[in-house]
């Protein structure tokens, strides 16, 4: 019963892991039939002389930090909002969740359409209110913040639902006890709910960071990393080097560095999940 799975994981997971690390130590490109072992040359080049990679690394960090901050703060607020017994709350939850379900490629084309610099809807609204039209994705300073805003818009409800599941697990007994002890609703929230939510929040931070690191489609579809590498991320560079310029050795080195970043986060996440309070 397990043989196919074992074989599958060996072929599509364990072997690729080892082979990618090996390739990262070679100078292989798709144009050449043979390759040579070059040691850590690819890594040295990446970290010390490839300005685009360093830029992409910085951009990725910038994107991850602000996207995660956004989805955590807004997601927590949204969960509190959705945790009330209000008429029609289910409908709101459904609508809030739409952007999560819709694919990134579609989200990207729709926002690019709305933010089209010359005649797009948002600039038309700005002009109608006597405000200056914006260059949006054509601007080096605006493109990345817009990517971040879009990602928050798309992802926030997903993390809100995780927060919501946590909120619904807060023991009612503790809240009632706090109120018997004379706490008002705010104090009960501050001293019971907030500490209870700390592990869930940590989990959402790690989860959102992993997901944000892996985002690829909007940069690929909207800007291709531009203008002037303003939205170039490690994921996009990994794609470009490996599958556009066919620099497989160099691309493998990027993949290894990138995966090391993800791995650190995944291991933190595993730790949180296997800690006793989440068992």
């Amino acid at each position, binding site marked *: *019963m*397990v043989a*196919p*799975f*074992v074989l599958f*994981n060996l072929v*599509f*997971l*364990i072997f*690729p*892991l080892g*082979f*990618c*690390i090996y390739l990262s130590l070679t100078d292989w490109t798709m144009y050449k039939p043979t390759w040579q072992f070059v040691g850590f040359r690819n890594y040295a080049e990446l970290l010390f002389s490839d300005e685009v990679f360093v830029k992409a690394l910085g951009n990725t960090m910038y994107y991850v930090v602000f996207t995660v901050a956004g989805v955590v703060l807004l997601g927590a607020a*949204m969960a509190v*909002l959705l945790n009330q017994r*209000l008429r029609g709350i289910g409908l*709101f939850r*459904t*609508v*809030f*969740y*739409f*952007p999560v*379900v819709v*694919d990134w*490629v*579609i*989200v990207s*084309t*729709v*926002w690019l*359409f709305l933010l089209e610099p010359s005649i*797009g809807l948002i600039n*038309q609204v700005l002009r*109608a209110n006597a405000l200056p039209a914006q260059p949006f994705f054509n601007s080096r300073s605006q493109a990345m913040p817009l990517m971040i805003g879009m990602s928050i*818009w798309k992802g926030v409800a997903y993390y809100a*639902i*995780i927060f919501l*599941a946590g909120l619904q697990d807060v023991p009612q007994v503790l809240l009632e006890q706090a109120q018997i002890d004379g706490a008002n609703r705010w104090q009960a929230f501050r001293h019971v709910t907030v500490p209870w939510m700390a592990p869930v929040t940590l*989990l959402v931070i790690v*989860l959102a960071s992993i997901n944000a690191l892996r985002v*690829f489609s909007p940069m690929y579809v909207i800007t291709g990393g531009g203008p002037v590498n303003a939205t170039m991320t490690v*994921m996009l560079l*990994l*794609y470009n080097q*490996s*599958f556009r310029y066919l620099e*497989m050795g160099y*691309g*493998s080195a990027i*993949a*290894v560095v*990138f*995966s090391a970043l*993800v*791995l650190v986060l995944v*291991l933190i996440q*595993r730790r949180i*999940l296997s800690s006793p309070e989440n068992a």
Partner: protein
Amino acid sequence: MGKLGVRTTRIILNSVSYVLLVGWGLVAAMPLVWMVSSAFKYSREIYTWPPSIIPRQPTFDNFVAAWTKVPFDWFLINSAIVSLVEVTGVLAFGAMVAYVLAIRRVPGRSLLWVLVLAGLIIPEQVTYIPRFMIVKQLGWINTLQGVVAPYFMSSFGVFLLAQFFQTIPGELFDASRIDGLGEFGILLRIVLPLSQPALAALAIFTWLSSWNNFFWPLLVVINESKRTVPVGLASFFQEEGVANIGHVMAGNTIAILAPLAVFILFQRHFVQGIGVTGLKEVF
């Protein structure tokens, strides 16, 4: 605080809540409403000011264009085949391996666990180039089996189902062994019927992530007729650009129908699924 005070506070709080709910509801829905609305507009109306949510002269031209300029029917068929095959594989093999791990408890299963955990931990990015080479060696570039292959089984699926199987009381299996059910009989007749919530959550998440997968199909597929929906849409957008944005929005509108329908039909499982999967793992 008097009784009236409490009630007034509640009314104020509720009003603020509704303002926020409606506010974000509009922010969340507006781009998608605009997308659908533009799909039914002639290009001269798409950018006119003041904007109209309901098209003044509704048209199906954009849909006709999307359908005839690119093989949109093939995009949908390919995505349907790929996602259904992946769901089937992930569920079937996930259930078998999870059964062995959680219920049979065969010797050597700790090694099997290591393999499953490796699958949860190893980032996918490190596998792309070697996977591409393997698929190329197999002669599966530009085929649907090439798109499916690396996603046909999933360690996450095994992990999720094993977690769930462990909660099934062991006496049930002892009784069924006495009744002469084989291993597959126990899995099919006892374990799977008891595991419907976990299976449903796994099926829906696998389906959606497969349907929306972009990076891997982008690598494997070359011919237009082999593209999945996201790859097809991305290249359609690159061909049509902002000038023919109505065509793209029509394509988008067709493309969101299936995920939205699945979401609305199985919403309960989605929310439960995040409870089960989101807190455990999202891959």
